[in-house]
């Protein structure tokens, strides 16, 4: 979530006006999610949270793309956006590393937090999942991970 603008907040650098409508659209989406209540069904309880994670991911991705791929915004504006928390700094830092180009969220690579001491299942490449399932003679059962609702974020996917 972006920081609340106060009197002490630095003014947005030049070029912010061009991306503002898009950022507002993201904010609107977040509001819409908030206005729909959580489902009472146990398994669906965290779905709204997933949606929030998704918007957060998309917004960070948007800022990342603008600066690193499309090269349309200045470094000054990029840093300002990071400081005002329009984008997740840590997540973007991971995207710049090899093998983490499509990472969904930071929690999915925290091996220390999981029971088996491994990363989340959404980090496993789809091809490998299919291969393993074939060995066991089953279908791939994985649909979405429980942390953020990601359905696969390996770089090869």
């Amino acid at each position, binding site marked *: 979530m972006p920081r609340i*603008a*106060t009197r002490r907040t630095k003014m*947005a650098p030049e070029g912010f006006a061009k991306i*503002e*409508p898009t950022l507002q659209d993201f904010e609107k989406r977040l509001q819409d999610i908030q206005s729909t209540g959580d489902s009472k069904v146990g398994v669906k309880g965290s779905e709204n949270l997933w949606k929030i994670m998704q918007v957060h991911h998309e917004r960070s991705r948007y800022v990342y793309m603008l600066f690193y791929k499309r090269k349309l915004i200045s470094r000054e504006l990029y840093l300002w956006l990071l400081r005002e928390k329009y984008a997740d700094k840590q997540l973007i830092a991971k995207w710049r590393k090899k093998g983490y180009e499509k990472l969904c969220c930071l929690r999915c690579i925290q091996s220390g937090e999981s029971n088996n001491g491994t990363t989340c299942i959404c980090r496993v490449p789809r091809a490998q999942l299919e291969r393993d399932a074939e060995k066991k003679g089953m279908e791939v059962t994985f649909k979405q991970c429980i942390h953020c609702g990601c359905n696969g974020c390996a770089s090869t996917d």
Partner: protein
Amino acid sequence: MRRPWKEYTAPNGKKYYYNSETKKTQWERPIFESRVKDDVVPVNRNPQGSSALDKINIPVYVIPLSNDWKLVIWNNGTKFYIDPHGKSQKGLEDPDSLELLDYINRDKLILLVGFARGYMSSHIDPDVVYDEILEEIEQMKQDLNGDKGSESNDDIELVLKDNKDANEPVNEEELELQRQLITNLNDVDEPNTIGNNTEAKKKFMELLDNFHLDKFSTWRIEMKKIESQQSFFLIESNNEREQLFEEWCSNFQTVNSDNYEDGLESDSSMDESDGDELEPTKYHYLSHIINKTDITNDTIYQDVRKQQKSLFKEFKIKEFITSKKEQEQFTSKLLFYYKNFDLEERKKLFVHLINTYKVQLSYSLQHSLDTDDKVGLLSETQFRTLLEENNSFEIETTLLRLEQLINVQGLLNKLIEEPIYYVLGIKDKTVELFNILNHLMSIP
């Protein structure tokens, strides 16, 4: 210190500001706020939109016709005719030239228009095609002058065929290629049959260029502007589309001067819809009914329904909007505008809305002008007399014709879902729409 201004959200999602000291309401963000937010950027999502109209157009090919008329093809694919006095005209008023144009090989003309728009091909040289057309016209002029009228259509076509054979060496491959190119340009065939993936990608990129999408935006937002287009579906998966969009955005700085335009596509679909009789938009009659109702501050949908029961039946509202819930939703949205804004303000809102769709609008307009010579638009004076007569049926027909002209069911289908599009009564709406279109047409 207490701040007098407070921010609220209107039912349409837009923010407005209320000053608790002066009891004033306004849409604009008050200026003395600590963070300057480039005061009220209008909702226009794509800044390139306005500049699209004043892009420089260059004539590329000139084809002399009979009686000193000339056909000029511009680099955005539009056609103009130059009359003997050297003035440019939209329509061709010379019967001889018209006849001549009828006999020219259409495919080659289309190919030429394609080249004018920047279509490149390694196999076919645009100059050769141009020369061929010129030659053909020379031939035809002689033929037509030789025995005026006595020759039947078939004979001329025969001459044409001989001509073609003489000009081109019998090269099956070349011909085949050319045919393929033409079908691609025309897009008459189903797009899925084009097996060539790079071709599809190229067309898709052209589509992105055509609509001047906002390169500062996300695919999720921008795709809504073009998802009704045929070439949109050339790329099958959305992921791939998004990737292409990103690619397009990232190489924007290097190629922004190239503007391909591809208005030749979806000709067939346009013709189909033109054949139908005038069809009102979904909310057309309902908005008309609401306009006729006297609205007080506490009017709700049920009141409107009670008051105008007969009209509801007469206009068969049920057939347009089947669900009652939707009727109610739309009515309450409209009632909001009727209660809070007077006529002038509503007119402003309407014009503002139309302006946000300017790019799509001018594109559709151009398209229907290109494909149709008989444009169903009245002249200024005719329109005024029509208004004075106050013949409501005629006015409504004019409105529907205007809507058909800009093809609201196609490209602008998002526009006709907006409640603001309906905040005016039929007469006011026609006037405003007519003015806007007139303005757009005056800019070539």
